[in-house]
């Protein structure tokens, strides 16, 4: 591959060309992003390579402003002709969109000026044969872990590196390379009439920080066989533990509800809650966008605004919304540097690991998988398919499936009893398992 610094200069030049072309077409302001990624995605199934995909993706997007009218266009074609056509298309749209007093670039004074190297680029010098060998080790470990594993969806290795450059007519331009590697495995187990599949994966910006292929395979196999013989439980109310990998979704839903676009559309159950108590006193939720090697780290947001460490919940109280400049203007507030979302969100853990949480719950449901999109963000009403384990006396009793769990997120947040130390680290939103006091479980 071409030297990354040289490639970055090229993409920066492309952004500059896009902005120049936009101004030439009469735009009063413009912003543009260009990205270029390449990688390998490979699956080994039943001991043999199944698919080998070489990926190479380019994209550019431009948004132009004519006063307060806006138009956008994007393409996968990075040629000079495509740049002209794309800018032209964006300008054409701006003739028909409405004057929007909130539209425009983020304020110039908020542009990031310090762009630290966040150490996000660690390419993996991996041949196809090496990759096949790693995926094979992973799948073999899964298939040999338990005799009830009889089939496999394979082990998949992904390794991708890319560059993203953003610039706007305030003169801001930023760009950085990044890498992302993962290894996942999904296997199928059978016992009597019950057939189940489950998976596990490891993900990092550094190949050295991936879990060993064998460990990934073994966890996938154990998770699969632990579900064999699952059955519904009867309808009841009970405490629920969301295992850390599914608790991530609850934290994402919280962020979704305090996001500016949901707030100004009145499409959130957390409207007008700044300063309100949304969680119990012990809860602290915050964002750390500058973590070295972090999965979501960035020094500036999608509008070039400097990102900062930010507290969302302190002592259970809502400290800040999640805003980009448009939503901020709609709400009469200041952007929080969150165009494009939150970066490395964390919630403080208590002192108990998952086993400790099970003991504290004593009797209830441990949820390890959720199904469907049964969340109404306008009302907070929550109803989703679930699978997991029934727990009594703090011990797992048997696997459970074909049930739903339901409640309202606002009540579930206030009903949070404890956050585990078993933090899910493979996500831009990181949390331990959540113990929630009570939900409605519907089953057979």
């Amino acid at each position, binding site marked *: 591959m071409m030297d990354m610094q040289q490639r970055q200069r090229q993409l920066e030049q492309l952004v500059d060309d896009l902005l120049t072309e936009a101004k030439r077409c009469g735009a009063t302001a413009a912003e543009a992003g260009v990205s270029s990624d390449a990688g390998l995605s490979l699956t080994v*199934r039943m001991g*043999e390579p*199944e698919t*080998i*995909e*070489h990926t*190479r993706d*380019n994209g550019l997007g431009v948004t132009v402003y004519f006063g307060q009218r*806006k*138009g*956008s*266009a994007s*393409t*996968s*074609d990075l040629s000079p002709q*495509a740049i002209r*056509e*794309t800018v032209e298309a964006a300008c*054409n*749209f*701006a003739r*028909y*969109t*409405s*004057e*929007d007093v909130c539209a425009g670039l983020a304020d110039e004074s908020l542009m990031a000026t310090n762009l630290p190297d966040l150490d996000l680029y660690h390419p993996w010098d991996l041949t*196809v044969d090496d990759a096949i060998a790693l995926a094979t080790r992973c799948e073999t470990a899964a298939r040999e872990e338990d005799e009830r594993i009889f089939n496999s*969806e394979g082990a998949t290795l992904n390794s991708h590196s890319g560059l993203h450059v953003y610039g706007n007519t305030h003169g801001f331009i930023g760009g950085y390379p990044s890498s992302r590697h993962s290894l996942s495995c999904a296997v*199928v187990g059978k016992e009597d009439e019950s*057939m*189940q*599949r489950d998976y596990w994966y490891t993900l990092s910006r550094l190949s050295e920080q991936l879990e060993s292929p064998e460990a990934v395979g073994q966890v996938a196999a154990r998770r699969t066989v632990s*579900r064999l013989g699952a059955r*519904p439980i009867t*309808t009841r109310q009970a405490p629920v533990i969301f295992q850390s990998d599914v608790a991530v979704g609850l934290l994402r839903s919280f962020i979704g509800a305090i996001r500016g676009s949901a707030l100004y*559309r*009145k*499409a959130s159950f957390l409207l007008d809650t700044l300063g309100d108590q949304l969680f119990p006193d012990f809860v602290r939720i915050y964002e750390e966008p500058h973590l070295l090697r972090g999965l979501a780290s960035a020094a500036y947001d999608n509008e070039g605004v400097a990102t900062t460490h930010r507290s969302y919940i302190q002592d259970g109280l809502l400290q800040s919304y999640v805003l980009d400049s448009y939503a901020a203007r709609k709400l009469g507030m200041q952007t929080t540097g969150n165009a494009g979302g939150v970066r490395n969100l964390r919630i403080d853990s208590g002192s108990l690991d998952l086993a400790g949480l099970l003991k504290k719950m004593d009797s209830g449901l441990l949820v390890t998988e959720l*199904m*469907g*999109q*049964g969340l109404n963000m*306008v*009302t907070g*009403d929550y*109803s*989703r*398919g679930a*699978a997991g384990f029934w727990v009594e006396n703090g011990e797992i009793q048997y696997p459970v*499936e*074909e*049930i*739903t*769990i*339901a*409640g309202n997120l606002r009540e579930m947040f206030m009903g949070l009893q404890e956050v585990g130390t078993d933090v899910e680290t493979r996500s831009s939103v990181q949390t331990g398992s959540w113990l929630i006091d009570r939900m*409605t479980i*519907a*089953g*057979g």
Partner: protein
Amino acid sequence: MSDLIQIAQDTILVPVGLIETDLDRMLGELTGSAIDAADIYFQSSRLESWVLEDGIIKEGSHNIEQGAGIRAISGDKTGFAYSDELQLPMLLDAAKAARAITSSGGDRTVRITGKEVAGRQLYAPINPLPSLSETEKVELLRRVDAEARKQDPRVKQVIVSLVGAQDVVLVAAIDGTLNADVRPLVRLNVHVIAEHKGRREQGSSGGGARDAFDFFLQEERALGFAQEAVRQALVNLEAVEAPAGTMPVVLGPGWPGVLLHEAVGHGLEGDFNRKGTSAFSGRVGEQVASSVCTVVDDGTLPGRRGSLNVDDEGTESQYTVLIEKGVLKGYMQDKHNARLMKVDSTGNGRRESYAHLPMPRMTNTYMLAGESEPDEIISTVEKGLYAVNFGGGQVDITSGQFVFSASEAYLIENGKIKQPVKGATLIGNGPDTMTRVSMVGNDLKLDAGVGVCGKEGQSVPVGVGQPTLKIDELTVGGTGQ
């Protein structure tokens, strides 16, 4: 040569200076004793979207994508590479990378024969983007907004989106296939939020087709979507807690067919069944649903969102009976899985784009009409749920567990539809649930044309449909009694 192939060549190959002998050369690069199948998929797509929000035209955007995906298959191994630069050297590089799945290759020349195609046109080979002027599109959005707002003073927020796309695809394969499709697709969605006495609820509606934008002007369709979205939001303002537990469930006609998509559709896709990971694997010929159920996948419906003249492997789409009177008849196949299972492709080989591998996917999946009157079906339920609108669904094809989330539902008491209940997820096991379908209505209806199906990270447009039907027992995930 068919008109579609001509259009595709003119759209994709001519502007970049590629000629038919270049295709032969690329395909030649993909041959060899160890290669069982290989193809090149060229795609050029353009998409346009408009958003109205807060009464103003807030966004307009345009996207152009083009590229080629090149695949080589040896046994059950697939090598794949793609390029968004349609230049011969890049494409030959991609072909070499794809072929590297086997160590040998490149030793044969290929002549594309271009199998005679029937020239079927389920939709006109048009580009819908210029089918209305920009001024007319803006006017359409404004009329929809006004229509929604005038329905009721409780309507506080209206978001209208209009999307049009044209997808031109050209497929050439070493088995001699040369085929093409020109696929228009339009969609309009309305989302409203209504507020009353401090309570806020939402409603949404929409529709679409493989057609031009004036589809929305015919029969005042677009205004109908606005009325429907408001109606749903107002119904939800009155909704009480949904019940929790197992009970009889009556599903309305049309979009609730997402049941079939999740409960049986995915489980009958060829790849899962070849690998033996589906709850339906190895069950062809067995009773997998009650005898009132006949389920088909039909890519041949004119103008429908899920329809295709040819699939993304160049195979003509079909009417495929999946379940007949409760008996499993067959699976949906792409070429690769069909070859390995020694059956024929059913024209279900689909891919999100040139940058994705094709796999067996649904087109329009629906249940055929039965004999019961819808009223009669509801009258048989003493206490249960009547669900008429749904959000998305999901399935675990191995365990058979599936969910789908009702966004508009009512209690049934003593055979009568009673008060509306809040949205709730319904969960069941596909094969079990289908055996519990006890009554099927005579009112088959297809959805309005907004379905998107996701599988292994790839999204494709699909259709669903069904008549009113009754499931004797299904778990309803509410919070009430």
